[in-house]
């Protein structure tokens, strides 16, 4: 985790007015979508538009991720060949398998060599949206050291599982847990599926809190209106930041006195609490809160 990735906002790849505003909406990342948001007859045109947009527009430091078409189709390979030339931060691999990630990685290596780009500068963001992908998520992550995070795609996953998708999201409890734990183990980001009913504010807040409580590190958004709420919930609270600062200060004092274990406000502080405090401060720093 070297940059905040609390929100990843989907932007349809064939829409000039949305593309040119993508960098000013406040999301940590934007996903310029060449897949589901683009009709089959416009795939070529969207690819050329996204390529020109990345080349010409200022995204003001927002991470640029391009969701490419499935690598089993001709579109997917062409997407990589064209889009890699303008060096996006990452490519999102749809319905990812280990084979897809390896294939994308090999193609990127060839392009980077040919164009003289920094090796492995273009990262990969697999999208887990099939039962196979979910059960093999660790292998998918390990298929390339370009992988920086996983996005859970719950709509397609529940369709693949032939189960109903609900606002409560109980049906994706296992998927969220599995992705959160595996990503944590592999030290990459776990991004939650978007909440699709933009008019259900209460359900949206519950959904973000559920994802956060299970260990997801950020959430995809499908509307700019969702960004602020996600940021607020994923950012450490003022109390958490204050407590973390107290822990670190107490630790430094204890170290200077040669103490291994120490207490703060009458409670013993040990390694897991220090690690938690360090993580809180790291997140707060990335979010510009300290």
């Amino acid at each position, binding site marked *: 985790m070297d940059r905040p990735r609390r929100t990843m906002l989907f932007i349809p790849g064939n*829409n*000039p*007015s949305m593309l*040119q505003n993508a960098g000013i909406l406040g999301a940590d990342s934007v996903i310029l979508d060449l897949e589901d948001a683009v009709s089959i007859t416009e795939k*070529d*045109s969207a690819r*050329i*538009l996204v*390529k*020109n*947009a990345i*080349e*010409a*527009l200022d995204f003001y430091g927002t991470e640029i991720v391009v969701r490419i078409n499935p690598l089993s189709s001709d579109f997917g390979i062409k997407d990589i060949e064209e889009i890699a030339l303008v060096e996006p931060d990452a490519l999102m691999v749809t319905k990812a398998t280990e084979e897809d990630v390896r294939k994308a990685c090999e193609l990127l290596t060839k392009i980077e060599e040919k164009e003289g780009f920094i090796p492995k500068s273009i990262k990969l963001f697999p999208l887990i949206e099939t039962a196979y992908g979910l059960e093999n998520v660790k292998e998918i992550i390990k298929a390339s050291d370009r992988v920086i995070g996983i996005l859970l795609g719950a709509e397609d996953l529940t369709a693949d599982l032939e189960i109903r998708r609900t606002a409560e999201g109980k049906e994706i409890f296992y998927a969220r847990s599995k992705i959160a734990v595996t990503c944590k183990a592999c030290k990459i980001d776990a991004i939650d599926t978007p909440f699709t009913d933009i008019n259900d504010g209460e359900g949206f807040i519950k959904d973000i809190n559920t994802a956060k409580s299970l260990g997801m590190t950020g959430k995809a958004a499908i509307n700019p209106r969702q960004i602020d709420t996600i940021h607020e919930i994923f950012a450490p609270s003022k109390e958490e930041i204050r407590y973390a600062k107290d822990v670190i200060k107490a630790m430094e004092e204890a170290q200077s006195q040669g103490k291994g274990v120490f207490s703060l406000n009458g409670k013993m502080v040990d390694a897991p609490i220090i690690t938690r405090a360090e993580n809180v401060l790291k997140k707060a720093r990335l979010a510009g809160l300290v």
Partner: protein
Amino acid sequence: MNIVNPAKAGTMESSDIYIIVSPNEGGGIILDLESIVMKQFGKQIEEVILKTLYRLNVKDIHLVAKDRGALDYTIRARVEAAIKRAI
């Protein structure tokens, strides 16, 4: 590049440009431009279109452009898409 088929790209939505191209064998470049910002940016839009045609090595073409306030990157992209569909 030789334009062999009629083709189109883009939309009539705001911030986009709709491009229709057709063959014009041996007739050079014919450009018909309509824009909602013709007075302010007509010359600039024309220039972007011509530069894109030059870059793609297109010498004979009839190109109709209906602009709805597209930025340069969109103009370049839509012209390129229409040409690639037409060759």
